[in-house]
């Protein structure tokens, strides 16, 4: 496959090492670690996750290692996890999306209110929520690709616009899961339904997130669209000269991300078991954190969707592990901050491997 994630045979390694010539000064072990990490972008987050899991398992009082804790962590990761798929796609195009959380919030409010207040059948309310989120994403995409504004500015603007729309639309009233279930709209909170494997309790929402990761992992690495996402983020000019319609690819990336946020809204509704403007507050930055820790380059064109899932899990594992160890919230936030900076520093170091 074309994106730089697959091992080539050993002869290639040797040739490159010989070509580069400069690698000899450095320790052989260090440089081969560096180049292995470069080859498999999801490997470093996987190792970090594994290390965190092992450390918290052996250092704690035993609660961390229990299956119910794992189940709770998976449930906690679901919303950020699904939203971060959209963020990854956008970051791969060398963009950024600050309006993620509010799009998900708007869509879950929209679904709940259409069903409760306007009497829409829940399936239609659900689809309308997806459509609204897709339109919001498309608006972001149009501003980025057609009006050519920087993604940071566009989504900072639409962040505020969508927050306001959500507040105006919902009149700050909440709709509870019980209200939805009581009115025959259980479909809207179906994503919060528990599935138990012994003491491991997850939700249908968690399963949906895993399926979505699998789908987008396939799409990004096995379709022309996916390859164009990478190419556009890698070098937009080169992509254009290769005949790729860069604007269309960017527009579609934001639109697809919007749809993912719509699905995220559904998962949010099930997870929070209420539709409220207070839900998913920190989702924007949490998704960026997951993407960065997951090894996707903020400069675009390099990264793997699975890395993002690992990144999101790492944040949850750190939070939970530290919390069970009695570390208070402030210090946990501090730890995550350090983790982000270390992740980016490692990413820079890895990228030097083949320059």
């Amino acid at each position, binding site marked *: 496959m074309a*994106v*730089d994630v697959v091992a*080539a045979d050993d002869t*290639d390694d040797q040739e*490159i090492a010989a070509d580069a010539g400069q690698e000899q000064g450095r320790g052989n072990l260090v440089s081969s670690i560096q180049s292995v990490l470069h080859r498999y972008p999801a490997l470093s987050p996987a190792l970090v996750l594994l290390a965190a899991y092992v450390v918290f398992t052996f250092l704690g009082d035993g609660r961390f290692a229990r299956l119910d804790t794992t189940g709770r962590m998976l449930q906690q990761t679901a919303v950020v996890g699904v939203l971060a798929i959209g963020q990854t796609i956008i970051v791969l195009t060398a963009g950024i999306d600050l309006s993620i959380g509010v799009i998900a919030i708007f869509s879950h409010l929209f679904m709940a209110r259409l069903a409760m207040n306007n009497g829409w059948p829940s399936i239609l309310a659900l689809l309308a929520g997806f459509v609204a989120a897709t339109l919001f994403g498309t608006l972001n995409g149009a501003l980025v690709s057609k009006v050519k504004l920087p993604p940071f500015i566009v989504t900072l603007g639409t962040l505020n616009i969508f927050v306001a729309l959500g507040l105006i639309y919902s009149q700050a009233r909440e709709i509870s899961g019980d209200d939805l279930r009581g009115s025959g709209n259980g479909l809207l909170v179906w994503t919060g339904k528990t599935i138990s494997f012994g003491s491991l309790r997850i939700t249908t929402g968690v399963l949906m997130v895993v399926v979505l990761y699998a789908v987008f992992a396939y799409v990004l690495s096995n379709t022309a669209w996916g390859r164009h996402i990478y190419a556009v983020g890698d070098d937009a000019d*080169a992509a254009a000269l*290769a*005949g790729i319609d860069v604007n269309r690819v960017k527009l579609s990336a934001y639109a697809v991300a919007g749809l993912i946020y719509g699905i995220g809204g559904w998962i949010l509704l099930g997870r929070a078991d209420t539709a409220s403007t207070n839900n998913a507050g920190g989702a924007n930055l949490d998704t960026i954190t997951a993407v960065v820790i997951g090894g996707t380059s903020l400069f675009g064109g390099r990264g793997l969707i699975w890395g993002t899932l690992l990144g999101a899990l790492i944040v949850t594992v750190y939070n939970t592990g530290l919390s069970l160890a009695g570390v208070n919230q402030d210090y946990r936030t501090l730890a995550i901050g350090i983790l982000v900076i270390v992740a980016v520093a490692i990413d820079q170091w890895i990228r030097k491997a*083949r320059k």
Partner: protein
Amino acid sequence: MTDTTDATVPAGRAGDQPLCELRNIRISFGGLHAVDDVSVNLYPGEVVALVGGNGAGKSTLMHALAGAHPADSGEIWINGQPVTIHNPRDARTHGVEVIYQKLALADNIDAAGNVFLGRELRTKTGSLDDEAMASATQKVLARLNPRFKNLKTAVKSLSGGQRQSVAIARAVHFNARILIMDEPTAALGPAETAQVRELITQLKAEGIGIFLISHDIHDVFDLADRISVMAQGQLVGTVDKNAVTKDEVLAMIILGKRPEETTPDDIAELTS
């Protein structure tokens, strides 16, 4: 229609239909006339060398034909028909392939991914057919650089010459009718350069027309049929390779004068 078949175009060609004509092309960047009313043409199986100093406008002129930077004014004719080329896709539909001076590769994607970028091969289910793309790439690259093996590494970790081979492979794989080669051998070693020269000869024999931009006057004389010289955005003239000497071409490049305007003193000064 402006008369592009001026005196400097070899007469023997007048009867045939050119494969490609650029007529009165103008391109400006702000106040800078990068290409100023330039007309050149190309016949099937012919190599036309575009030469000139740095910044003469050679690449910019070719960008108009490639769709990389559409002309401000002027016409492009292919096979006797006027065509509009707004973007690289338009150029491709007219059989124009380009090896860009800056190569235009996506750094994090491997050789096959770059060769097929924008026109990926797919399997029946619509997914990327990486195997087919890799083996096709292997085949083209074998023509250029038999020792090229790093098919699966990101092109950013390839040497300059290997990257250039990938860019050439991309241009020749798709059965171009018109090939633009912008300093195709700048980064290549002697063996690879020889391969490219051999390739140019083969492509010529297949009836492909080639615009070759080069600073190597020996390459130009070895490979080209005609030579179009540009200076400061303008066409100094187009000459038949067999009708001029290297010194005369150098005089065109450096002094901006056509052979008939050049005095023996000019030549003496250049060669001293």
